[in-house]
């Protein structure tokens, strides 16, 4: 089991002249949670669909669980599970019938099917909803059912394409707890998401922007990247009652590379050699009143905002 769960090199997919995924290199370790982040249309789903064998790569190669995504795609299918972006179970069938169908589709039958069905029902805790039609379940339960369906054949690797999009925060947390349990049980999880708090919980994250992977690594390591935190630069948080005024005033202050509103505060990213005091001094007196500052370590969002800006500047 020394081969990585996923290894991709130069993986590319074009749709006509549009390059949806551009020479992506990727390595996902076994039993880890790998988070793929990026804005809509960046190429997340296309990448996942290539790794699942749903789309043929235009260029490059990828191995999933040591098998080639093109040549061994039938063998790969038996070992992976896929929870797609949209709800993709049969709405008119009950939750139980959906599980039976997917179990049979993966070649389970008889006592084996009943045993595995019981196990996944237990894992995701959906027993009391088994008799309901899938279409009538809430978003959170639908996703749990989809997860249960993807787990029936005991896959080693699970692909989850924005599994928490559009479900409520409580259900979101519950789903993530489930994912941690699965990871602890030795499964590899490949998750795409928009949520930064979810990204922080991954062992490893990669950020895809405009079809290219800009950065990949452990969340902590990314926050210390030299592009994100150049030597001598400062990241600080400004707490103020005049949020928008301060934000606007900061745009014209020399030495401020970025200013972003974060909830009730403004995050600033200063050029090396610029101090936070000099920035505050540059603000109009009225805005300085009650202003509190403290230096902060960058969040993952800061990391991605900085990298996105650099990528845009480079183009």
């Amino acid at each position, binding site marked *: 089991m020394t081969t990585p769960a996923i290894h991709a090199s130069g993986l590319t997919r074009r749709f006509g002249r549009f390059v949806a995924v551009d020479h992506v290199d990727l390595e996902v370790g076994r039993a880890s949670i790998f988070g793929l982040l990026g804005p809509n249309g960046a190429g997340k789903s296309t990448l996942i*669909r290539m790794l*699942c*064998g*749903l*789309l*043929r790569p235009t260029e490059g190669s990828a191995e999933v669980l040591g098998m080639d995504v093109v040549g061994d795609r*039938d063998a790969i*299918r*038996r070992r*992976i599970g*896929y929870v*797609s972006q*949209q*709800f*993709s*179970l*049969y*709405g*008119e*069938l009950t939750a139980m*019938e959906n599980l*039976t*169908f*997917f*179990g*049979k*589709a*993966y*070649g389970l*039958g008889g006592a084996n099917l009943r045993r595995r069905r019981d196990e996944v029902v237990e894992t995701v805790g959906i027993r009391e909803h088994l008799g309901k*039609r899938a279409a009538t379940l809430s978003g959170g339960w639908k996703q749990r059912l989809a997860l249960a*369906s993807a787990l029936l054949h005991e896959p080693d690797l699970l692909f989850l394409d924005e599994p928490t999009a559009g479900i409520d925060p409580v259900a979101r947390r519950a789903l993530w707890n489930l994912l941690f349990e699965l990871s602890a049980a030795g499964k590899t999880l490949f998750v795409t998401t928009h949520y930064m708090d979810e990204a922080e919980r991954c062992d490893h994250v990669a950020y895809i922007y405009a079809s290219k992977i800009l950065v990949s690594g452990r969340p902590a390591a990314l926050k210390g990247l030299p592009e994100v935190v150049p030597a001598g630069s400062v990241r600080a948080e400004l707490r103020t009652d005049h949020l928008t005024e301060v934000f606007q005033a900061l745009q014209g202050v020399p030495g401020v590379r970025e200013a972003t509103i974060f909830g009730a505060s403004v995050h600033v990213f200063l050029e090396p050699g610029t101090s936070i005091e000099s920035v505050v001094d540059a603000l109009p007196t009225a805005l300085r009143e009650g202003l509190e500052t403290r230096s902060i370590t960058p969040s993952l969002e800061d990391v991605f905002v900085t990298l996105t800006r650099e990528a845009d500047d480079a183009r």
Partner: protein
Amino acid sequence: MLARGLGAVVYKELRQVRRDPATLVLALLIPAVQLMIFGYAIDTEIRDIPTVVVDQARTQTSRELARRLEATGTFRFAGEVSGRDEALEQLRRGDARVAVVIPHDLDQRRLDGQPAPVQVLIDGSDANLAQQAQAAAVGLGLAETRRRAVASGGLPLAYDIRPRYLYNPDGSSDRFFVPGLAGIILQLVTMVLTAFSIVRERERGTLEQLMVTPVSGLAVTLGKILPAVLIGAGETVLVMLAMVHVFDVPIAGSLTLLAWVTLLFLFTSLALGMLISTIARTQLQAMLLTMLVLLPSVLLSGFMFPRATMPPGIHELTYAIPATYFIEILRGLVVRGASGPELMQHILPLAGIGLFLSLVVAIRFRKYTE
């Protein structure tokens, strides 16, 4: 195994049908109801053509002639008009389709032993009607001539032609049309059952989920066709019952053979529906493609117009239409009582098309998400 996962797909399809009983009832009843409506409506024997008479002679002979014309059943007198102009006006308005002009010197000419010219003006805008009106009118003249020739002991007949209708002694158009109609209706309703199935899954996103499972393309193809064949078989039983009991078209051939060829035809038209389903990207496209296939099935299969008279090119095209073979088989089996070996020339190509279509679908399905 080629059809890996077939059981799973059949299980799912049957459950889905069970969840939607209204659709099932519609699918079962619509063919029988349509057969009854169209079976009554379509009648190629033209009778009671509204006819006006311009009787310029006004004698017993002229009235006798008019009576004989009406007795053929082809014409129904809608009234007498005073002159040719008024008759033409009635034709233009469409109140009458035929006008009969009897000359004033009818009796005189007969006494002189000359043929009496009776003008029959026929509205030619409906070619079929015009032909039958002409045939009936000319036929009456010939029959009259023959009757007189025989009565006067004059010229013997050159040929004594004695036509006899086999298999359909009354020349009933129901026997010709109803079996063909049954075939067309069965194709229509069954094709729709599958034409939408893959597109619908694609639109709902379940297709992708199905594709990441190890279920094979052939399993999806057969798994969707087989449950629909069951529904089609139910439809067939109802349609055949209506044909035999409502339209009095008895099944002259073997019921077992009829059952087998019907299953074969259902399979083929369902495979055609599946092909549409893999080509169409949206349900609207599926609908339009269904129309594209349907009209040739109705117009070129020999259901309405004889294929023998179709121009080259089109005639060859009719061999690619499954309904062509099924209608030939139905007419042969139901009306003429033909046996399996006698119908083999139609059964084999039908089976070939079915097999070909389902293989194409299975292969296309494999590539579908690419």
